[in-house]
């Protein structure tokens, strides 16, 4: 399932929004998503996408597309950290071997 579809599922399930309103261009404020809703949504994104959000979300999230792009960034970060982490641990193991 794409990032957009998973996000749409969350917005339908937990915010009672209709799926056909959730196009990428839909503005968050017209969906009734105020700043507190957005903070709350970040927890749901962490759970739904298995990502970790460092600190507060960026303040320039305006549309569904912006949120999707932010989630994709987080997923990419996670992947990069995972590979850096495994590289690092190999080097460490290598270090011990030496």
């Amino acid at each position, binding site marked *: 399932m794409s990032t957009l579809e998973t996000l749409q599922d969350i917005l339908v399930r937990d915010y009672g*929004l209709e799926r056909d309103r959730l196009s990428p261009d839909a503005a968050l404020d017209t969906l*009734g998503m105020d700043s507190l809703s957005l903070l709350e949504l970040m927890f749901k994104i962490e759970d739904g996408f298995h990502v970790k959000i460092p600190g507060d979300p960026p303040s320039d999230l305006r549309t569904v597309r912006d949120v999707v792009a932010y989630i994709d960034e987080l997923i990419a970060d996670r992947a990069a950290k995972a590979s850096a982490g495994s590289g690092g641990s190999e080097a460490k193991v290598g270090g011990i071997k030496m």
Partner: protein
Amino acid sequence: MTSRRVAVTGLGVVSPIGNSIEAVTRSLAEGRSGVRRLDPALCSRLRSPIGAPTAFDGAANFDPARVRLLDRVTQLALVAAGQALGDARLDLSAEQRERCGTFVGSGMGGAETTDAGYRTIYAEASDRVNPYTVLAAMTTAPASWISIEHGLLGPSLTFSTACSSSSVAIGEAARRIQSGDVDVMIAGGAEAPLTFGVLRAWEAMRTLAAEDPNDPSASCRPFSLNRSGLVLGEGAAFVVLEEWQHAVDRGAPIRAELTGYGLTSDASHITRPSIQGQARAMHAALASARLAPGKIDYINAHGSATLQNDATETSAIKEVFGERAYSIPVSSTKSTHGHLLGAAGALEFVIAVICLERHMVSPTMHLDTADPACDLDYVPGAARQAVELKAVMSNSFAFGGTNAVLIAEVPRPR
């Protein structure tokens, strides 16, 4: 109470003994108890795993976008207040809404939200606290949401005087109508204390009733020799109060007149009730109603089923009513709906008005052998029907010593 009279034109209730006035009336007539064993997940570590829950599902009453902003206490309050406004057939679009207000009593506010927040922080050692925690947990949330939902632009206040909170809310609302500040008030109380944290805290104080081993629903035994404490309950009850002429002019159904309100402080001990404090509150209510003690036909007692309260309240009633105390039916409906803390006074005032209207006296259930210190007519075991009632009193006494007494009378032109 003087020139401006206060009509009771609407009642609403969501409670352990029913979620409508009709359902509550039937439960009272049948002596049906809403006390039961709680969900095992909630009570595995409780000594006495009982409570008086309300059959109420927030998700069935509010859409998902809304329900996540509202603690259970506010959900209960909104539904009961909506019922009361509907019962009063009040068309708010036709009202001067600056002259309509909301007074709510609640002891513990959004207890489930508070519990969940602490679970996140301490039990899960997580920083992911719901950003709505403050807004859902604040004790003022029920009053605020009622004002918002119905566009009531007059005063919106929350009273928190422990177990007398909602009697104070109703009494103070009546005063605002009498003073001329407002014409219509939605007043009552809400409480949702059936969380593990709250139950455990009350248990730690050794005030909760032991579970009846044969019949958990009979665990709350006001005035009984073997009473062992109170049973916590949840729910909400509201009344619509209206300036008399305002109600008459719009052809509203007038269910009763709120004529008396007495408010005193024990100023003695944080938990131990005072005969004098309770008696002074009853005297003050009678004085404000300009009624002689002989005119009261039924008392809905505070009757919490704690060792201290029931004997003290009995003595206070005897102090106020003298010999006549023995011929007034006095009952504790907490025997069936439990102790709703901040919502208790409103629920019991609503019940007193139901009794007044239906010529019925509600029973004290589970009272087989009375405490010798409790020697009044507690209407044990069964409701009485076809009893002529003209004036009824509802007592609410609280930890902290705030005593509030309300009197309602049969509506009649003057």
